[in-house]
């Protein structure tokens, strides 16, 4: 990270924040066995920080590391895939790749390809029925409501059910966007139409985007090289763009610009709203 500087005062502040995160993680391990927990890891800066913190606690307290999972939506940056493989080896993590291969098979893994519902397996067909999707086919792309449900929600739910997972560690932060500002460290998700019951734990809620980079620098954490060339927030390849080409994320104006501008995270939100307005 070159000349990156963190003041002594800020470094102390980061240590306090780490302490708080570890308290949350330890509280989680009092409530749940490690084998009942899973850590979501996208390879992005937040989830890498989150994983690093949980791993630290496990080492310090001699606890087994929970499951570590990553969801492959079929449109990943090769840089992220490489990063995940490299760091898994380095940190000795048995990373579980979750992927709905049935959907990929149905469209020959081609982005923009057509997925015929009749070509899908029974579970995927049942899932489409469950969300009220009645068409005969859909396009395999980030915009696709059906594809998104099958590639993300279904694989996660399946993992939760099959492994009897009771808690998920997530890497959300309060400053990500205004809607998060009332989030809590522990959120119980009731069983619903679209998800099994589980608890979501957010150990790094209080970290800001700047804190993440300060901490990455202070503790020499690994990060995906895409951040060096201008990406601020990483999603799937076809909907993520760098914010300032050529300017490393940590040198951008983090305080006055919107981190997720380069991402189209609004897909599910827009679809959910349409559904509630009666359009889906």
């Amino acid at each position, binding site marked *: 990270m070159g000349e990156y500087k963190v003041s002594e005062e800020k470094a102390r502040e980061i240590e306090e924040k780490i302490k708080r995160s570890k308290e949350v993680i330890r509280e989680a391990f009092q409530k749940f066995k490690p084998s009942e927990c899973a850590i979501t890891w996208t390879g992005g800066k937040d989830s890498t920080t989150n994983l690093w913190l949980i791993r630290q606690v496990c080492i310090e307290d001699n606890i087994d590391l929970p499951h570590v999972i990553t969801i492959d939506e079929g449109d990943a940056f090769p840089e992220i895939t490489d990063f995940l493989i490299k760091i898994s080896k380095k940190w000795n993590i048995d990373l579980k790749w979750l992927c709905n291969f049935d959907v990929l098979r149905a469209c020959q893994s081609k982005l923009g390809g057509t997925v015929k519902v009749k070509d899908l397996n029974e579970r995927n067909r049942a899932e489409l029925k469950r969300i009220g999707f009645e068409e005969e086919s859909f396009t395999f792309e980030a915009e696709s409501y059906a594809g998104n449900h099958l590639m993300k929600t279904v694989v996660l739910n399946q993992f939760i059910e099959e492994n009897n997972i009771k808690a998920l560690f997530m890497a959300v932060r309060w400053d990500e966007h205004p809607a998060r500002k009332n989030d809590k460290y522990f959120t119980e998700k009731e069983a619903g139409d679209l998800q099994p019951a589980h608890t979501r734990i957010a150990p790094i809620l209080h970290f800001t985007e700047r804190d993440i980079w300060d901490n990455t620098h202070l503790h020499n954490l690994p990060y995906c090289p895409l951040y060096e060339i201008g990406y601020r927030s990483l999603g799937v390849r076809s909907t993520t763009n760098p914010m300032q080409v050529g300017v490393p994320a940590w040198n951008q104006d983090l305080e006055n610009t919107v981190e997720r501008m380069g991402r*189209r995270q*609004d897909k599910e939100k827009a679809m959910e709203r*349409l559904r509630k307005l009666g359009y889906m």
Partner: protein
Amino acid sequence: MNSLRLKNVILLTVDTLRKDVLGCYNPESKLTPFIDSLQDRCIKFTNMQAIGPYTQASFPGILTSSYYFDWGRHKKCPPQRILISEVLKKGGITTAGIHSNPYISEFFGWNRGWDFFYDSMEEEVTDEVPYIKGDKINKKVDEWLSSHIKGKDYGRFFLWMHYMDVHEPYVPERRYVEMVDPSIKLSSNEMFNLFKNVILKRDVSDKEKVELLKKLYFAHVREIDEYVQDFFSILKRYDLLENSTVIITSDHGDEFGEHGGLSHDGKFYSELINVPFLIYNPGEDEGKVCDKLVSNIDIPPTILHIFGLEQFKGFKGHSLLPLENYPEKGCFGEAIDKRSAHEKETDKPTYYYQEEKLKIIYRESTDTWEMYDLRDDPRELNNIVNISTGAESMKQILKPRIGRWLKDK
């Protein structure tokens, strides 16, 4: 003209607002005392037709002066569409868009050209109120105005704001229900069940339920009137009432069984496309009533005219101002001919053309034509396409538009 050129323009759109619920169009309606009180300072258009009967089909007219299928059948705003915000920004006008409708959100590509754009998609909403309410929209507007207007030298601005509160599900607050019909004692849950079991199913078999739903809709209209009033007091507070033009309209209306359906599907009857249109324009044509047939595709050119900017060649409409220069022309519109809440890929397009008081409609799915003479059949119940002598020439005007984006290829 000079005084005109110094103005800001505010476009206030209300989703799903029928024309006949406004007292200034229908004296029997007592739902909108504040909006009605504005009419003496407005130009009131009585014959404004939306180019589409639902948001995705209508907003291309309102914000881009183009038709829904101009570049094919897209779910997202195609890059060829140029938004009024993009044109104004190039013209040195500050632009802000504040709303809560997913179909015109950033995700669907409607965030282009805005210096400030808020579509609320990151906010948490409930099933009963799946959008940000008008009071919060006003608050956002207030915040934006206060940040833009610092000192006297702020640049002229274009503000577009959009209220969602009359869109289904109709679950109005108690006090608005009281104002409409105190005898209605439904709980929020019961109101929401009407949405699920009657509106979503487009079930008009029980007339009493349809009437009840209409009253709940009215309660939301009553609510909207308060938000408009609050918004005008914000304008007054910033001293903007005399140097701003406020255009008030809706993207489409709503159906309560008039043509066998509910909500706003792919139909072109008046309850869906004949929308309210007021230009609050202090000092210019105050209190005038314009009965000319006009289209919401004319809104962007009108905005350019008020700013004194050159007309943009890509826009397909014509400025409504000055009133005397507006040419007599017909109105077109197009949409997907869906009959449910859910649009299927297999649903076919439908089109309309109106000239004076004659309207012709074509449905591709059944290859059928309908024609109505609105003078003696304002409710559009008597199809005269087989007996009208004018039908053939109207068909010839509409035919080239059918599937035209496929022919271009």
